[in-house]
């Protein structure tokens, strides 16, 4: 099963994870991260689907998939920096949250 076949379940799992993230996090920070991750998912859907399928087919390893996910997160940070007004703390937290939530949901959706 590829990620593109199961992308809705993947997206739902990431969003459920975002809700759980509010626990133990400042409410305003959680709202920022939620909106950052949702924007990321929307902008990166095609790349995530393609890479998830490559992972499922064995053309990418889990480690390579994770590296590429972090590359995407770094590129999201690059864009945020170009638009200014975003704190280093916020973009750091974004990458950590994104990696945890998306990897867990992607591996579950693919069944590996």
């Amino acid at each position, binding site marked *: 099963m590829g990620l593109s076949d199961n992308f809705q379940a993947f997206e739902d799992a990431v969003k459920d994870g975002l809700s759980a993230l509010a626990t133990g996090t400042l409410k305003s920070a959680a709202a920022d991260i939620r909106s950052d991750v949702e924007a990321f998912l929307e902008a990166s859907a095609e790349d995530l689907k393609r890479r998830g399928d*490559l992972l499922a087919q064995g053309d990418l390893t889990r480690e390579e998939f994770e590296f*590429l996910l*972090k*590359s995407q997160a770094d590129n999201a940070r*690059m*864009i945020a920096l170009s638009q200014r007004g975003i704190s280093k703390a916020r973009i750091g937290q974004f990458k950590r949250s994104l990696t945890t939530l998306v990897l867990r949901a992607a591996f579950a959706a693919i069944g590996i």
Partner: protein
Amino acid sequence: MTYLLSCGPRPAFLALFLVLAACDTPPPYSEAAVQAATELKADSIALLQQANEPFPSHADEAARISTEASAEALAASRIPGNGAVEEQWRLITDPDGNLLGGTLARWETQGTLSRGFRDEVVGEVAQAFDTLICTEQAKQAARSCAAPAGGN
């Protein structure tokens, strides 16, 4: 003396004005920085496309690109108010990160990079350079830099 006293507050106002003006002044646009980033992007992509071959065969070129990218990062850090570009160079060159520096480090560690990974990561590195170039160019046009098109 009378003149100095009567003009006393003016230097203070002038200094305040200059400080406030400096706060609002964007860092200067650099055509040389755009040129260097454009060349480094092309060289980096050309190099990474050969990452199916053992790293030692390309170690000299990898070192040259890393050195030039680090020099650009240092130059960016010396420009007041240029924090965004400085941080973007840091992300691109960081060997513990996941863009150019991290990919070169991975290639060196693993010897070669798989075709699937190589094809995907080249797009990410290219997009990172595009964003940095766009940020630099946006200084000139006094506009914001939206996500560059065609990253992957």
